[in-house]
């Protein structure tokens, strides 16, 4: 199947192993959530799946592609998108540039394809359309979150991963975010890490629990 498959993955920082023995699959239309206390290794897991951290063991496969040893930008170009914790948008560049840089990623290389993608993202996030030439650092928290998701969408993901997207957002913005994610559900595989359980359960088909570096078996 052409979704994301993670097998026996282990990872951490330097000599410190943060998580191990993680295996799961996400089909191309599924949305799964990962719940767990801080320090359980959820963020480290996503960073390893996307290639920002080297895998200490195991595999990350997207369809037929084995991405385990590839650098992060190769993961992005293959279609694994991460909306990281804290958004991490490029504050000194404009909103437009933040989106345009994704043209480095695979599908966007053709200018026509890029334009189509861009227009669609603008439709999803009209607030961003109004602020295209503003410095990204001057956007509000909610707008930055939109930009981070828009940016991830621009690479035409096959898997979209979000790490605590509601962090630091006011409840009303969180509602808007939930609506956006609902609209995206089913288009591609989605992995969502959240501490906000209600948010998680509303959007996901399945919830995995992670504790102390391992995925717990759950009913």
């Amino acid at each position: 199947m052409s979704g994301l498959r993670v097998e026996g993955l282990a990872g951490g920082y330097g000599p410190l192993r943060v998580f191990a023995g993680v295996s799961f699959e996400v089909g191309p239309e599924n949305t799964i959530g990962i719940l767990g206390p801080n320090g359980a290794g959820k963020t480290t897991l996503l960073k390893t799946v996307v290639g920002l951290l080297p895998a200490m063991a195991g595999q990350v496969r997207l369809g037929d592609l084995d991405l385990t040893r590839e650098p992060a930008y190769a993961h992005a170009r293959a279609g694994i998108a991460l909306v990281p914790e804290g958004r991490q948008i490029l504050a000194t560049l404009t909103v437009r540039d933040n989106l345009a840089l994704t043209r480095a990623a695979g599908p966007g290389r053709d200018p026509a394809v890029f334009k189509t993608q861009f227009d669609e993202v603008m439709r999803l996030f009209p607030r961003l359309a109004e602020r295209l030439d503003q410095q990204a650092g001057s956007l509000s928290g909610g707008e930055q979150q939109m930009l981070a998701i828009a940016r991830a969408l621009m690479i035409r993901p096959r898997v979209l991963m979000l790490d605590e997207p509601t962090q630091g957002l006011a409840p009303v913005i969180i509602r808007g975010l939930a609506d956006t994610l609902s609209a995206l559900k089913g288009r591609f595989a989605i992995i969502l890490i959240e501490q906000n359980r209600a948010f998680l359960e509303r959007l996901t088909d399945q919830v995995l629990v992670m504790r102390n570096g391992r995925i717990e078996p759950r009913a």
Partner: protein
Amino acid sequence: MKTALLIIAAALYAASPYLGVLPGWTPSVATVATFIALSLIGMNLIFGVAGMLAFGQAAIVALPGYVAGMLEASGMPAAAAIPAGILAAVAAARIVGEIFIRLPGTYFAIGTLGFAFVMEGVARAFPSTTGGASGLMLSREIVLGELGWYVLALATLAAGIACYVWFLRGSMLRTLRQVRHDELAAEVLGIDVVRTKLRVFTVGSVFSAVGGVFLAHYVGVVVPDSAGVIRSLEQLAMVIIGGAGSAAGPLVGAALVQWLFVAAGEAGRFEVLVYGAGFLLAVLFAPEGIVGLVRRGWAGLAPARKAAPISVPATPVPGVAAVRRSGICLKVESVAKNFGGLQAVDNVSLEVPFGVIVALIGPNGAGKTTLYNILSGIEEPSSGRVLIEDSDMASVPPHRRARHVGRSFQVARLVPQMSVLENVAVRADQLGFTSEAARLAAAGAQLAWFGLGELAGRRAAELGSGYHKLVELARAAVGEPALLLLDEPAVGLAPEEIERLCHFLTLLRERGAAILIVEHNVALVARIAERIFVMNQGRIIAAGTGPEIMADPKVREAYLGALE
């Protein structure tokens, strides 16, 4: 056994020029090497132990020679000129240090580099005073003969090594290792990092100056080259090749390099390349130098000796009685902090009384870490006040708050190469105990009290991350500070370790400490905290007991719904 070997090695070294074993290793070459080694002790201290990138130390080595030479030329006897020269060099070093040490390390590196540049340039530029490129002649008053000079060199080197070892005894080595490894944690533990680095730089420069002035008088002349950048780098290379951070390193490096150049004949044009290649190879492949390689080889040959278990008293050290304190320990009054446009902390007020555990919970990004940084002194609030034991903490730097405040970090910051006991002792060092024994006893007692006594002798690098956090907690608690700021102490702990954590926190509370913890583990928090503050988006949105918080709809919406 080890001491006997060292004595034999020292005797062999001393006798070597007369044994004729190595071609070219004459008493005069050995004298030069020995004086160089003495000056390198300084570089070893500054760079090898404290990790400071000083790239211009040759200027400090050569300056006393120049000053003494100029004074001697105007009639001062050598006996007065030499100390004057040393003083001048150390003063210059102090000034350079004062200017550059408080800035990020690169400034210090470039600053010392520039200093050597300038020294060499000045030495060349004023031939009438400094002799220009051909150098400055020094007084020939000291008439000692070849053997006499050699003995003087050995004696001063021995004295130098003794001073070096004495300087690093006890708390100093621990302090420097902490500073080298993690300056932020060092500050929070009470170490005045700038002051410490300045001190090391100055003391190191004394060694540089003494070695340099004697060398200059032995050779009889001091030239501009000896003050410049290249000579500084050569000296750095010698220290690295010999073994940075070890007592014998400078001697090994200096002797080896001096001999190599003599044995190889007038290297001339190859000199710079050979130095550079040696330096580069050492940095790339053998950063611990020859002494390090020998040590590793020795450890491989000799059977692994179990580190002697450190005896740890079973009861708290006498004198550290339960300090029953009462009232409010920490008062946060309308503290706000904004960074540019971002309001990280917005009008936060809270109190933590003595003998009470207060928890601060909230989603990531709520501003808890920023608040902690303000309480530790790492950040200044944009407005509002922080009072600890009724003293306003405005402008009080972290190392001065450390006596009253113990802080643990989200990711435990221990120094991996030091033992658990040494890591905990780093804080004890800053609390004013009068003897090394007292410091170690306090650290050991704290560990024992927490039931971690059997870990005392283990290297921090060998512990699992759960134990790291418990050790860090023990470290923060040394000296029974009034306030404990704990940042996610339960993260990464297994359930039985969490039990221990609760036990320790309860013990600390009974002894009167005021404890503020940031945590995500709501169950833990509900269990042990008498009062809980909930933060979201920089503001306190709720306060109360566990059940009250759980029932609060604002809290449910913003934060709960997370794990039980």
